[in-house]
């Protein structure tokens, strides 16, 4: 088992090194200093910024230095756009609101979708299943933007009208502007509506996926064997089927994990939430080189780590992986 984990890790190290090299090269295709400062820059300013990011040195040195910073979690480079703030400050500021939205979204979505998928598969072909599939499909046909706009219209604007200044938050239950820390009050105020929208958006896809997984598992021969042994429907479903279904379920959940940290650019923009997605987008737009480079490296690391984690979880549920 442990050799398996180590092997997976070792496989992924070169992949990560490659990603970083590629990303750094791409950010240097056009001189980032010149792009940031524009035509009116003085010689001094150019020299200063070039010096600060070590752009004049050979690429390989820059590469090693940056890798060193990433692996020692040294994020002390200063942002160009927000002088006085380090990349680390920006990261730790942005990660909090993002996690407040993405973690509850993921847990609620997975929980409900797996349950609904199970129910749907259990009643396969009957009215309940057919209506659930229909609703899920309809839900999938509607764009993310529509959910955001309607969510804001009814959830914030209309609802606030109805509350007419009464109740908590001065009658404004859901905000669509900015974000402040605090749980549970501020969380409900700032995050609940985006979370609901996230859950509704993902629900259609996830329900259909989990239903398909369960339906497929329910037709397997070992299910008939279990029934022929005298297992109850519940045992068949929750012991035999679910443990096998864990493999595709884990993949599904794990592939969405990196987005926990990256957040949803769209949602964060519409609700003016200063999260990771919006922060990276702003940095790119404003040609903030140190922030862009480090944020990208961190996101790539998160992808790799979840990859390894997925493999490890596989090994835990599937003996065919663990013992091979």
């Amino acid at each position: 088992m442990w050799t398996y984990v180590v092997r997976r890790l070792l496989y992924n190290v070169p992949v990560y090194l490659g990603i970083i090299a590629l990303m750094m090269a791409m950010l240097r295709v056009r001189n980032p200093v010149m792009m940031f400062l524009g035509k009116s820059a003085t010689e001094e300013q150019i020299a200063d910024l070039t010096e600060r990011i070590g752009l004049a040195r050979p690429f390989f040195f820059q590469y090693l230095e940056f890798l060193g910073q990433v692996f020692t979690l040294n994020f002390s480079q200063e942002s160009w756009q927000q002088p006085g703030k380090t990349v680390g400050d920006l990261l730790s500021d942005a990660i909090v609101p993002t996690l407040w939205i993405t973690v509850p979204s993921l847990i609620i979505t997975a929980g409900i979708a797996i349950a609904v998928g199970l129910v749907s598969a259990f009643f396969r072909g009957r009215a309940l299943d057919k209506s659930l599939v229909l609703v899920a499909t309809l839900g999938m046909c509607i764009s993310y933007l529509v959910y955001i706009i309607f969510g804001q219209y009814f959830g914030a604007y209309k609802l606030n009208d109805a509350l007419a200044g009464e109740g908590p938050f001065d009658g404004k239950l859901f905000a669509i502007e900015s974000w402040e820390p605090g749980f549970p009050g501020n969380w409900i105020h700032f995050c609940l509506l985006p979370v609901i929208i996230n859950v509704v958006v993902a629900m259609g896809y996830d329900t259909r996926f989990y239903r398909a997984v369960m339906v497929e598992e329910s037709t397997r021969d070992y299910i008939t064997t279990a029934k022929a042994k005298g297992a109850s429907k519940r045992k068949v479903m929750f012991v035999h089927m679910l443990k096998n279904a864990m493999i595709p379920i884990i993949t599904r959940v794990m592939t969405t994990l990196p987005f926990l940290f990256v957040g949803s650019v769209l949602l964060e923009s519409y609700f003016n939430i200063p999260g990771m997605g919006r922060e990276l987008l702003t940095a790119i737009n404003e040609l903030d080189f140190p922030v862009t480079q480090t944020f990208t490296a961190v996101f790539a690391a998160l992808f790799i780590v979840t990859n390894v984690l997925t493999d490890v979880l596989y090994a835990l549920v599937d003996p065919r992986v663990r013992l091979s």
Partner: protein
Amino acid sequence: MTTPTPILRVENLTTSFRTDDGVVTAVDDVSFNVWPGESLAIVGESGCGKTVTSKSVMRLLPEYTSMIAPESKILFGGVDLAHADERTMRSIRGAKIAMIFQEPMTSLNPVFTVGWQLDEALRYHTSLSRKGRRERAIEMLRLVEIPNPEQRVDEYPHQLSGGMRQRVMIAIALCCEPDILVADEPTTALDVTIQAQILHLMEDLKKKLNTAVMLITHDLGVVAQVCDRVIVMYAGRVIEKGTVREIFHSPQHPYTKALLDSIPKAGRREHGKRLPTIEGIVPSLDDLPEGCRFEARCPLAEKRCADEEPDIVPHAFTERPVRCHFPLNQT
């Protein structure tokens, strides 16, 4: 001495499925008995309803798309399984009637150990302690001649060969000492040498545990080796019944004869010569003929056969049941 009674009496079993093209009847008015300790073969070509018959007995058919007709009876230990509730069925499945399947590669659950899967049956049907169950599991593995049972018990199905997995399936099926073992083509997916071993093992255990076996197969060679009595099915109907000797030596139904003619005779096989197969195909269940279901393929068919379906009745001389207007061996 008490008169022997059958342990399972299937009477007028009719099983239908709701499909997109309407209702099809896969098993039509099938009756037979299973006697204690005997080996009963159900034979017939693919699609004739052998599996549906056995799954009807176990009530393992899809709940909402299959129906067993109200007049059907499956009498076992004073209970009518055809209409028993799920609770009753659960106490019978695996305990009183156990089943093994064709595909040993997929019949075991890949994510649980062999021991766990044996343990499960014992947990449902015995009051043994955890330790007792483990001992019993190892004992069963030894009984089905798996080498190193103490080690194998903790292995996963993918670590075993196909033949071994089928042995494990047999161990699971027999661990609660059922009265009947239903084996649905248990050797079809295996190599010839392994086939023989598995059949041997089943024979052996059947005698040791005095279990009746319902062996479903389309391989008459297997039937000749291990069975006592035979039921021949065609397109959802029983068309002939008899002892193995009777069926092999004096088949009464043209279909039974055709089946026998298509068996390769050991040693007498001429190279390069194809086996005679039965011409034509089985009629589709949603388009069954009005008359005899074998009429289109029958060498003896006459006008009456197309108009009127024969009943299953005792043969004029042998008094052995046959479903044919013009059965063989009449003179």
